[in-house]
């Protein structure tokens, strides 16, 4: 994997239906958009027209939820061919999906389930990613998922598992800062330790999002503003990884587009500040 293949895009937001009209009407300032791949892997109609228009004015990346990289089912070749076709048509800067499984026996849970963190699973998943990259004719990004259960059979820490998969598959990493924070609470580990363990040269994109607090666990709902603790973790990540393409995710109770745009600008400001303070720290 050559990280130079992934030029920094800046600070973007997810493309969501409530914002189609303001984006298409005014083409507001935004560095880039992330789209959910499956929403545009359709035969025709308005979604494709919308994405054509957005792509004509902005860089995009395609972020999928159904690759099911970690499933014990065979790879879904029909899905992969459709994804490749969509990528050829819309020319995203990159394609990403999640380090998880979404179903088994041909059935789909439409959720992102965690895997047991073992060497055997590393080999299984890395082998599949290599095949996927060959089919899609590109290096993909894999994202760490939020999780509410952990398997007793795991022998690696989550960050060790993510690193091992990325290195064995020679793929890139989409590091979701909110998911690191959520999982650190749900599974009782140090989020900073997680960030510090991820190989910096493989991190191509960061996600930022809100979550909901249920007392005994945090739920990755993408329906709240980004919490101060997650912003702090993001600044730590920036000091480690540099000016990495950053995306604001907001998928439910979606506010006006201006709110997301403001969050993207907040990320830019915090990134600038974190890097400036890091330079001062190193100079001192």
């Amino acid at each position, binding site marked *: 994997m050559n990280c130079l293949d992934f030029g920094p895009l800046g600070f973007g937001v997810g493309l969501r239906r409530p914002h189609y009209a303001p984006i298409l009407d005014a083409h507001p300032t935004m560095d880039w958009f992330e789209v959910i791949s499956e929403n545009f892997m359709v035969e025709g109609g308005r979604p494709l027209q919308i994405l054509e228009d957005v792509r004509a004015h902005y860089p995009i990346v395609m972020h999928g939820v159904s690759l099911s990289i970690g499933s014990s089912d065979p790879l879904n070749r029909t899905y992969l061919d459709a994804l490749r076709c969509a990528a050829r048509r819309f020319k995203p800067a990159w394609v990403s999906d999640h380090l998880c499984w979404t179903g088994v026996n041909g059935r789909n849970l439409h*959720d992102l389930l965690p895997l047991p963190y073992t060497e055997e699973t590393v080999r299984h998943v890395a082998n599949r990613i290599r095949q996927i990259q060959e089919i899609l004719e590109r290096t993909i990004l894999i994202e760490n998922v939020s999780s509410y259960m952990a398997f007793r059979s795991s022998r690696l820490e989550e960050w060790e598992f993510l690193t091992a998969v990325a290195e064995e598959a020679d793929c890139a990493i989409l590091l979701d800062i909110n998911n690191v924070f959520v999982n650190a609470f749900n599974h009782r580990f140090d989020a900073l330790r997680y960030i510090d363990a991820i190989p910096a040269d493989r991190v191509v994109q960061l996600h930022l999002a809100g979550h909901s607090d249920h007392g005994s666990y945090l*739920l990755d709902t993408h329906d709240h503003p980004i919490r101060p603790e997650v912003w702090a973790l993001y600044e730590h990540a920036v000091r480690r990884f540099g000016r990495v393409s950053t995306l604001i995710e907001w998928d439910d109770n979606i506010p006006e587009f201006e709110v997301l745009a403001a969050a993207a600008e907040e990320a830019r400001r915090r990134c600038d500040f974190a890097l400036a303070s890091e330079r001062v720290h190193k100079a001192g």
Partner: protein
Amino acid sequence: MNLRELQNLVYRSITDPDGTKERVGEERGLAPGVLVALIHGDERLSAFERVNIYADAYFYRLLECLGEDFPTTLAVLGEDNFAALVRGYLLEYRPTEPSIVYAGLYLADFLNRHPFSERWPFVAELARLERAVLDVFHAADAPALRVEALRAIPSGEWPAVKLRAHPAVEIVHGEWRITDLLDAVEHGREWTDPEHREASVLVWRQNALVHYRSLEPVERDALVLVSKGASLAAVCEAVAAGAQETNHVGLIGHLLARWLADGIIMPSDATLATSVRDGFPSTGT
């Protein structure tokens, strides 16, 4: 336990209504407490509670999706009944496709056999119509036949012109007049049970928007012919045979003008298709 066995067990625990109960493990011939043995729990959340987070997410995510795909069915049944319907539906028709758009593909079939159809005998047809709206929304793009292209053909050759339906067109046949109900709920008006009378509804997409309207028998029969690929002559004969009025030519002209304006027919003939591409811009949808 290998990865496949683990994933099968987790899948079953999430989707079975009693999945997180120990009984599921016992039914599979596994030792009691199988989930506890597989999944970490602590004083905050037990293994069962952790799996239940996924079980709740599975059901409520699909309930929300199906509610968005079938808003009028939801309005007719009410929230509690719709939730019960979806719970039963998901046990019989577990999602298989990567896209959640297909999760409700068989809801109308399920409703046909469901006790709710005794209280609301029209509800299966309603769900079928709502599904057609969704399918048409995502149907393939294609250039529709335009009036200019037809006029470019010598009139003597018109009878042989072969037509077919645009891919973003569906005709839904049924026993109930559903469209008024659909329209009322869509626009927030009070609705009443539909009339029990044979009905066909045309659903089509134009300029990225989905439309629907009731079809009278003459137009319905003509469009069914078009959907199978028919010549204009055959379509005219069908209209003439079915029309009660004597001005068949006027009726055929009116229907053809409406189909062209709505963009629901395409040329089936390669020559005509070429003239459409070369000489005249397509409407596209």
